[in-house]
């Protein structure tokens, strides 16, 4: 399996960029809308003051002895004072003829009603805002229409608009920056369930194939249910393999044991030498098959377990003592002494079943190749690394192909007469490697073979 994944784009970047882009557009929209609105309101403010000025002049118009008098108050023009000292123009018309004020101010002669009219126009090469209204005066025998226009330049309005634009731009920028922060936060929040799922799947134990139980957002439900189904199928097939291994071990070993016992019983009953000879060969072949089957199953089991190592604290010394105790009957038959030396306690984190299997195979090997009445020394040390050194007084490994010996079904040239499958060293090495260790073979100077199993 490979760790590289075909990556294209990033959900986080895409989401962040979309949100920030949206915020930028909104900020720009806000700027133009608010500024436009403010301009409208500022214009309305100027219009209403112009309107008030026009009305106060109109209100002052009276007919006295047939003559129009417009004694308008000081406030009529005073109210038009602005911070920018805007210029003020006005004109007063009686029935389309100029009564007073600026004659060249554009005069709307067509429209004379009570309605106030506003317009923006040019006067003396500057833009002015003008308000116009008219009123009818009724005398004893005359009626006449007075029309008043008041115009003002827009310097103060421009100053106000510039200030508003500046403020709104500042406001929009702050809004945008806050939105950016918010989009980072929103992205992080959205991505978090995905990260949580990743973390929980990564942190799982080797044999944990249970479905994901913690709640996930609805968008991830399909993914997680697919994942759960996949893990379910994997779990089922792994369980089937384990069952198959156990079943196979049972099915092969039991009939072999039956055959062996029948062969031994028959051996007791036959007297002829050639028959006994044949039966002995048969028993040896059965032993060999049984052992090979056991080792094959061991190996299969190890291969399976190595992928899903179950580490626990194991004391190698205890483990060795237990193994020696189990193998002592076999050793006694050939007067071989099993001697354990070294540290009193060596604690390692490992799979006890695998370790037991691997080390048993090494001691088995040593027993098989040791001559009768010899010693097997098992030396265990904790430092620098936990290691077990097993040394016998047998023929030693063949020098020529020592590195080939640990491969499957390979046996030394000098051991033709001894039962063996060629799997013992392979199993031991698999176990060592599963624990991150090594298996080293050597022929020490004092003769015999030495296997060093270090973790």
């Amino acid at each position, binding site marked *: 399996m490979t760790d590289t994944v075909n990556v294209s784009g990033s959900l986080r970047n895409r989401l962040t960029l979309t949100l920030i882009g949206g915020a930028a557009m909104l900020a720009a929209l806000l700027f133009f809308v608010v500024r436009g609105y403010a301009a409208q309101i500022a214009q309305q403010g100027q219009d209403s003051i112009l309107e008030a000025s026009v009305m106060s002049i109109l209100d002052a118009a009276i007919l006295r002895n047939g003559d*129009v*008098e417009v*004694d308008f108050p*000081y406030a009529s023009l*005073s109210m038009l*004072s602005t911070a920018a000292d805007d*210029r*003020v123009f006005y004109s*007063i018309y009686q029935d389309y003829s100029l009564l*007073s004020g600026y004659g060249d101010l554009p005069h709307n002669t067509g429209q004379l009603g009570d309605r106030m009219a506003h317009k923006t126009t040019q006067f003396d090469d500057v833009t002015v805002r003008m308000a116009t209204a008219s009123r009818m005066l009724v005398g004893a025998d005359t009626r006449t229409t007075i029309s008043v226009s008041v115009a003002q330049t827009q310097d103060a309005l421009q100053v106000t608009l510039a200030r508003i634009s500046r403020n709104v731009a500042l406001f929009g920028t702050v809004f945008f920056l806050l939105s950016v922060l918010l989009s980072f936060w929103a992205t992080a929040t959205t991505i978090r369930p995905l990260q949580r799922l990743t973390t929980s799947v990564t942190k799982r134990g080797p044999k944990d194939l249970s479905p994901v139980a913690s709640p996930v957002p609805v968008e991830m439900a399909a993914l997680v249910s697919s994942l759960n189904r996949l893990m379910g199928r994997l779990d089922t097939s792994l369980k089937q393999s384990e069952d198959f291994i156990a079943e196979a071990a049972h099915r092969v070993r039991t009939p072999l044991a039956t055959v062996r016992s029948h062969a031994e019983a028959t051996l007791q009953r036959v007297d002829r030498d050639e028959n006994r000879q044949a039966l002995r060969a048969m028993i040896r072949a059965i032993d060999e098959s049984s052992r090979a089957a056991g080792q094959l199953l061991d190996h299969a089991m190890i291969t399976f377990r190595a992928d899903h190592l179950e580490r626990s604290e194991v004391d190698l010394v205890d483990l060795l003592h237990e193994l020696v105790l189990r193998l002592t009957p076999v050793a006694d038959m050939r007067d071989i002494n099993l001697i354990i030396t070294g540290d009193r306690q060596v604690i390692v984190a490992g799979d006890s079943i695998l370790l037991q299997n691997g080390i048993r195979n090494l001691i088995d090997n040593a027993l098989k190749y040791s001559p009768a009445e010899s010693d097997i020394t098992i030396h265990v040390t904790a430092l620098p690394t936990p290691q077990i050194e097993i040394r016998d007084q047998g023929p030693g490994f063949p020098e020529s192909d020592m590195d080939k010996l640990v491969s499957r079904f390979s046996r030394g040239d000098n051991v033709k007469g001894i039962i063996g499958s060629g799997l013992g060293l392979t199993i031991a090495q698999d176990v060592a490697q599963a624990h991150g260790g090594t298996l080293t073979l050597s022929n020490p100077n004092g003769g015999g073979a030495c296997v060093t199993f270090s973790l």
Partner: protein
Amino acid sequence: MRYLFALILSLWPFVSGAQDWEDRQLFQAGNTAQTLRILSSTDTSFFAPIIEQFLSDTPAWSVEYLVTTTSDIDRKFRENPDQFDIIISSAMDLQLKLVNDGFALELSGIDHPEWAQWRQRLFAFTTEPAAIVINSRAFKDKTIPQTRQELIHALRQQPDLFRGKLGTYDVRQSGVGYLFATQDARVSETYWRLMEVMGSLNARLYCCSGEMIDDVASGKLLVAYNVLGSYAAARRQKDPRFEIILPSDFPTTMMRTGFVSKATQHVDASERFIQKMIDIQSTDGSTGSSRLPPLDKSLQGTNPSVISLEPALMTYLDGLKRRTFIKEWMSAVVQ
């Protein structure tokens, strides 16, 4: 004959122009190439120190100083805006209207308080109250009136003493007189009562403050109302024959203003002149270099008795308003 007529016609403006001026002086008439023409209502003796200081800083220039009445300034300048570089006048309303009508040049380089300038074009440089000037001898044994009300009271008590011996501006002729009158009338009805009393006592009408002060000093007049306080104060230093009263009920205070004509050929020199004038007048007068009262910055434009520079000053310049006001004034004063 026709040519002679044409010649007379073409020379007439110069002859008549020369005759029109109250005063006309050329400062530093040397071999200088360029001349600033200043059209002013301020008496030459009061304004000369400012011109002289300007010339000492910029000796390459000479200044032609032309004095006439405030209303005459308005008329002459509107006729020939390109003939004059700088316009100085005490009639704030006429000045403001000239600026509003676009005759003034913007001087963006000048830093002046908001309340003392309008549109960065019209710059105030003095603060001058309108004063009542009374003959010292006539009031020797009497309490000197401090308000308009007390003045009315004093006039009514001895009408025979004051008959024909009261003076004030003829608002039909004098721009600044009209400004004082309209501002007084805005503030209080007392103004109209005073005018009626003065009218009933055959008040004499003047074009200018100087003449009123002369007549009060000589005893020809006993009381002159709304005289330019700055002129009176300057005269008072040498002449003890009159007293100056600043009416305590409401002192009307105007600011003398100046602007540069938009049609000027001498933008830089004109701006330098205005700057110099403002500098001199802003130093609290403690240097004594100017004979004009300084711009009183302590007022900060908040004192309501100071006529403020705003478009409303144009109200009484309106033809209809002016006609109404003059009619009312005439019926009070010229009975």
